């Protein structure tokens, strides 16, 4: 909007200035020409006057000569002589004035011989009177040469004057035209100026109005933003590009126990645990392959490189107490896409952590409270069913066996639930050490050997030798779960292939059975809790429905992947892919 107005203002200024310049130039030209025309008018008037003078002088000279010729008195010749002198001067003046005008000069030059000739006739008359007396003078007078010359001169002068007068009229008309044009131009310019002034006033008035409106809108928007900011249940803090706090919302003030004024301009570091930032800096340095210092850079570096960054960290209150937050950092772009700063939105995790702790405590208590009676039940039933307390009657023995096997199943279920919960909650940290793939295969196969023998199933194992970084016990647990399933679902006399194939950067384990297979729609869901191919499997095969879920959790905790493939009715193959240990670690294993 502002840009459009600016363009209009510039365009109007250009038009105004251009018009003003054009009009000024036109007026200047017209005025110059007016002056020139006036000069020419004056010249024309003078020419007419001079020609009249010439004519009068000639008439004077002629009258004087005639007077002398008739009276013979020498006094009559005085005006003649004076006129002669004056004629000379007048002729000179005319020649001079007409020097620049060749046309008029040529006309004058045509007149001049006539004048000279007429003067010659006068001179002849004077001489005739002086030498021949009155009669000779009368005779000279009677010749009509003088009269013809006088007529010719009169005609010539009259023609010249007429022409000059006509010209004078033309020039006057032209001057009037020019004066009118100039007046019109100046008038128009004045009108244009007034119009521009008026337009400028309107524009300024409207701009003012708009800026007032914009100001109000801006104030409203600011108020709304403030309200959003301050009613958010998140701490929001923005910093500039070097980590100095620029803005703090109400939640941040409340949680951190600072007033906004106390925080503005301070380094964001004062709200963080220095040690935590230091270790995060080290961690990022390793992960990003570039130096990330353990100051505010540890908070913003990922965001600066456009990576969405959300992580758990600790906020430190004014009184030094701490609380956990989930911090999301976003880089703020300024004009021209340069970095203006960062926005840090934090969610208080205190409650979530408390709930997690409660859940962990609950699981721990339940585990103990369930296990203790189960241990007794299972133990007592085991002794009964095992005959340690003496031989039972056949029916009682059968019942004891049923009770014992179900106590076993319940016990396994409790173990599996707790196991899965602990692996998924991260309460069990995988004790990852270097293991050889072949050893994992051997140990896992050995663990299910007895079960396989009982079921009449053969396990054929093969392996490659390569190092993986794994929690040996947990990985064996995962493979035992897969092998146990394979044994359970294999027909008597069936064969299970258990092998590993070492590839570049990873190793692919394979458990292939000749069981009934898995329908395609179940290939993915069987890894979910309590999902089995057939609902009766838990009862008939004694599974808990958690074995594959535990297996997947363990594999994922190792950065690996587990999946199943099956061609209906022709057995199933379970794959586990694990990353190989880095070569530098492998040498450790070999040494």
């Amino acid at each position, binding site marked *: 909007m502002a840009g459009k107005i600016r363009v209009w203002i510039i365009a109007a200024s250009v038009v105004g200035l251009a018009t003003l310049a054009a009009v000024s130039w036109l007026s200047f030209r017209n005025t110059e020409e007016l002056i020139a025309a006036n000069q020419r008018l004056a010249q024309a008037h003078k020419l007419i006057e001079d020609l009249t003078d010439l004519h009068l002088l000639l008439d004077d000279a002629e009258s004087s000569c005639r007077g002398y010729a008739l009276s013979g008195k020498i006094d009559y010749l005085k005006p003649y002589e004076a006129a002669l002198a004056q004629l000379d001067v007048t002729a000179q003046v005319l020649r001079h004035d007409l020097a620049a005008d060749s046309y008029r000069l040529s006309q004058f030059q045509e007149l001049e011989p006539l004048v000279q000739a007429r003067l010659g006739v006068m001179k002849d008359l004077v001489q005739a009177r002086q030498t021949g007396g009155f009669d000779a003078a009368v005779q000279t007078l009677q010749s009509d040469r003088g009269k013809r010359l006088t007529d010719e001169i009169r005609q010539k002068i009259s023609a010249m004057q007429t022409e000059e007068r006509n010209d004078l009229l033309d020039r006057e008309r032209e001057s009037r035209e020019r004066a009118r044009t100039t007046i019109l131009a100046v008038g128009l310019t004045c009108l244009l100026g007034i119009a521009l002034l008026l337009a400028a006033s309107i524009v300024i008035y409207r701009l003012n109005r708009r800026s007032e409106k914009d100001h109000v809108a801006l104030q409203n928007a600011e108020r709304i933003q403030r309200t959003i900011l301050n009613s958010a249940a998140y701490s929001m803090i923005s910093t500039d590009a070097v980590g100095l706090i620029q803005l703090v919302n109400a939640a941040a003030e409340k949680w951190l126990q600072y007033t906004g004024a106390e925080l503005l301009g301070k380094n964001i570091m004062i709200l963080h645990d220095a040690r935590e930032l230091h270790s995060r800096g080290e961690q990022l340095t390793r992960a990003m392959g570039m130096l990330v210092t353990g100051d505010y850079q540890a908070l913003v570096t990922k965001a600066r490189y456009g990576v969405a960054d959300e992580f758990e960290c600790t906020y430190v209150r004014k009184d030094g107490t701490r609380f956990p937050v989930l911090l999301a950092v976003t880089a703020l772009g300024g004009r021209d896409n340069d970095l203006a700063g960062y926005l840090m939105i934090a969610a208080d995790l205190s409650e979530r952590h408390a709930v997690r702790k409660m859940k962990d405590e609950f699981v721990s208590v339940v585990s103990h409270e369930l296990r*203790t009676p189960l241990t007794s039940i299972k133990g007592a039933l085991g*002794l009964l069913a095992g*005959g*340690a307390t003496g031989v039972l009657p056949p029916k009682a023995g059968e019942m004891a066996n049923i009770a014992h096997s179900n106590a076993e199943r319940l016990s396994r279920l409790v173990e599996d639930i707790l196991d899965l919960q602990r692996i998924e909650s991260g309460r069990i940290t995988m004790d990852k050490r270097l293991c050889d793939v072949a050893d994992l295969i051997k140990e896992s196969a050995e663990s299910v050997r007895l079960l396989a023998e009982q079921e009449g199933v053969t396990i054929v194992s093969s392996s490659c030798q390569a190092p993986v970084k794994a929690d040996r016990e947990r990985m064996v647990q995962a493979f035992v779960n897969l092998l146990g399933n394979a044994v359970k679902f294999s027909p008597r006399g069936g064969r299970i292939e258990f092998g590993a194939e070492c590839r570049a950067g990873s190793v692919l384990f394979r458990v292939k059975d000749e069981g009934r297979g898995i329908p395609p729609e179940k290939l993915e869901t069987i890894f979910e809790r309590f999902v089995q191919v057939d609902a009766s499997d838990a009862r008939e095969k004694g599974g808990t429905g958690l074995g594959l879920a535990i297996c997947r959790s363990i594999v994922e905790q190792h950065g690996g992947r587990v999946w199943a493939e099956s061609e209906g009715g022709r057995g199933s193959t379970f794959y586990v892919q694990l990353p190989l240990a880095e070569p530098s670690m492998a040498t450790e294993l070999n040494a």
Partner: protein
Amino acid sequence: MPKTVLVIDDDRDIREVAKASLELVGGFMVIVAGSGTHGVAVAQEAKPDAIILDLMMPDMDGRQTLSQLRLLPETKSIPVIMLTAKVQANKQELVSEGAAGLLVKPFDPMQLPNQVCVILGWSVSREDVGRNGSAKG
């Protein structure tokens, strides 16, 4: 002379099952105690060949009882096997604190005597650890 084993566990039922298992299946002599404090006193008095000690007990827990047993001259050389649920198991830590090994609850009463013998390195013949087997010391 059969070996004497002291079972210390706050849960009476577990104590009884363990006692029955060790006596009936393993052929050991079994004495029991229901708390850490009582267990230490019994151990000092009876000087058993081995102690099976529950880890999670009220008042004085298994760890504290173990450290007491390791301190007292009459009991410091008696091997102690910790009895624990899998959740709390940290074998390395317990061994470094003086335990001889670890038994995980819930245990199989038919296998318990065998497991004790394996941990303590007592000789055990396979056919003995059967329905009515006994371990020989």
